[in-house]
């Protein structure tokens, strides 16, 4: 087997490391923007992708596999990883797709088909009505499932066309507004009505199948999200009991078996008050946060994917041990509306600790490209218990230095140190409901900046920075990139 990794950044680097360890030859591909990117250095061969679509160009990826003699394709996450068409095209070209079959992707990757499949397996789904044409339909549906309800666009997601309706008197207005929004966003004004579950946790189960049998490898709690982007993930979930855990794992494995699931996937659930759980959706691919499960099970999920693709056996599900927490280091500024921040990586220094894992897609001297998503690295800490993992992750983040682009480093530490997180009171709405004031720069850092700016440009920075700290200057006008003062949210 020779594997082409149809991806970039930290996930491509992570897959190459396992392929090297397994002695499997590998091929990296890159778009025009990614010439010289770090993931290329971990592969045995490199191929350039023509065209403007880069990693989304299935034909170019298959051509690169042919040209390099690759026999298999690992899609990573994002890009074409959940495209049943791409999986089918790989198979038609005689390439092994390291992922689910196109049939399983169609069944479980489609929201409505997967909800039906879950119901047929006896898995609870969020009570609701499929399409409501009129507000009278919606009122009847809401009376049936119980108020409050969520109106959701039938034609798409991402929060557009979504309205929380607390009581019947508010429904007409919300229905009209949601219809307008859904129509504008998806050219499809149809709405669904769903029971509103709050406070809710997002808990997902890692599954692994070989096309016949399937195992559930434990759950991850990913409730801390911002605009549907996960920020901190952990396993096991601090918010569910043994009975809920067993139900989640059993349900996920049953759904995987029913779909004759092959390779790695994730079944997502919402867990409401009292531990009631509801099926959300299936991600038919390797997930960004899969290292959380790897850290507590000791299993290499990518290696298992490769073994399964070669016709090997499904590994046993090891008993989880200890606790793992992952933080996503993003190139974005939490205190300026989470503006993304591309640019050169001028200085980069990661901590080395036996209990820390760092999956990074950048290196010093490289850059964060504006063409792709803002994930710089995932930092994952293992501890004997949750509190130890939390402290280790916070320490690891404090020992991380990245200069050249704004990052969410300080925000991640703030979240990890908050009482909310210490107590495990993590719900899907928590991050957005909480104010996260911008931490002040230490006076010594401001003084060092002033000294460096006073030195002639090009002079060795820091030479003169080892003096006493200057007076605190919290109203310093220097904090914006253009020196005009920093805005507070």
């Amino acid at each position, binding site marked *: 087997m020779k594997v082409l990794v149809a991806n970039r950044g930290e996930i491509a680097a992570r897959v190459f490391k396992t392929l090297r360890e397994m002695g499997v030859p590998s091929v990296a591909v890159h778009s025009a923007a990614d010439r010289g990117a770090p993931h290329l250095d971990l592969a045995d061969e490199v191929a350039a992708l023509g065209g403007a679509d880069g990693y989304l160009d299935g034909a170019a990826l298959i051509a690169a596999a042919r040209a390099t003699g690759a026999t298999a394709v690992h899609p990573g996450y994002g890009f074409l990883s959940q495209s049943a068409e791409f999986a089918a095209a790989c198979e038609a070209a005689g390439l092994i797709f390291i992922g689910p079959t196109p049939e399983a992707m169609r069944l479980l990757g489609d929201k409505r088909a997967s909800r039906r499949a879950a119901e047929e397996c006896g898995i609870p789904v969020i009570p609701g009505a499929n399409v409501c044409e009129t507000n009278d339909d919606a009122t009847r549906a809401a009376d049936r499932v119980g108020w409050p309800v969520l109106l959701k666009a039938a034609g798409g997601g991402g929060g557009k066309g979504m309205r929380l309706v607390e009581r019947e008197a508010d429904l007409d207005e919300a229905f009209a507004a949601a219809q307008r929004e859904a129509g504008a966003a998806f050219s499809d004004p149809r709405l669904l009505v769903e029971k509103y579950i709050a406070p809710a946790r997002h808990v997902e189960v890692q599954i692994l199948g070989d096309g016949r049998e399937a195992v559930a490898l434990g759950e991850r709690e990913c409730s801390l999200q911002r605009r549907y982007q*996960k920020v901190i993930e952990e396993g096991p979930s601090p918010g569910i009991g043994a009975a809920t855990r067993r139900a989640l794992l059993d349900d996920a494995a049953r759904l995987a078996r029913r779909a004759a699931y092959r390779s790695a996937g994730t079944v997502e659930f919402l867990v409401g008050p009292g531990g009631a759980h509801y099926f959300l959706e299936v991600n038919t691919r390797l997930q960004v946060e899969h290292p959380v499960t790897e850290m507590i099970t000791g299993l290499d999920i990518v290696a298992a994917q490769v073994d399964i693709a070669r016709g090997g056996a499904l590994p046993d599900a090891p008993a989880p041990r200890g606790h793992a927490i992952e933080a996503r280091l993003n*190139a974005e500024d939490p205190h300026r509306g989470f503006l993304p921040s591309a640019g050169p990586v*001028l200085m980069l220094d990661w901590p080395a600790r036996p209990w820390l894992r760092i999956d990074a897609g950048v290196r010093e001297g490289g850059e964060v490209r*504006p063409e792709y998503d803002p994930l710089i690295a995932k930092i994952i800490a293992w501890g004997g218990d949750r509190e130890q993992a939390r402290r280790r992750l916070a320490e690891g983040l404090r020992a991380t*230095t990245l200069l050249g682009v704004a990052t969410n480093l300080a925000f991640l530490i703030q979240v990890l140190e908050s009482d909310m997180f210490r107590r495990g009171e993590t719900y899907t709405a928590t991050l957005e409901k909480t104010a996260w004031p911008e931490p002040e720069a230490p006076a010594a*850092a401001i003084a060092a*900046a002033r000294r460096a700016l006073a030195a002639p440009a090009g002079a060795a*920075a820091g030479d003169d*920075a080892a003096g006493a700290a200057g007076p605190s200057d919290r109203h310093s006008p220097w904090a914006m*990139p253009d020196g005009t003062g920093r805005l507070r949210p």
Partner: protein
Amino acid sequence: MSFVHVEHEGRRLRLAVVRTARGVWVGWPGGARFFGPERGEAAAAPGAPAEVRAPMTGRVVKVAVEPGRAVVTDDLLLILHAMKMEYRLTAPRDGVVERIFCAEGEMVDLGATLVAIAPAPAAVPAVAAPATAAGPATAAATRAAVPGAEGGGGAA
């Protein structure tokens, strides 16, 4: 480009300092920030053009104005695109577009000046407040940028 150790509140603190052409990056345990040079008096003078700068590195996907165009506060000037998100930069104040420093399709760096807006001729004598010309300009650009962030995609 190195670490230095300084005294801070009685403890040793490790700082990382990198000087760039535009300013200096300083990192400390748990944070980092870019510091630009302090602005001179000239830029803050009343009647000086307001400069709208790039709030992030990205591609200019649309330039909505041309030199000589009169604009009022919050008029769309241009749209920036980065990391699957779109940002609308709007006029920080009423005036006339004096100069545009970028073109559609061009990549611009964080902090780069994109548009200069001169006060409307009639308005010049009225501009008496010592409010910095550049401060509000960036404030407006940033404020305008925030709603654009709603477009963030839903990856896992």
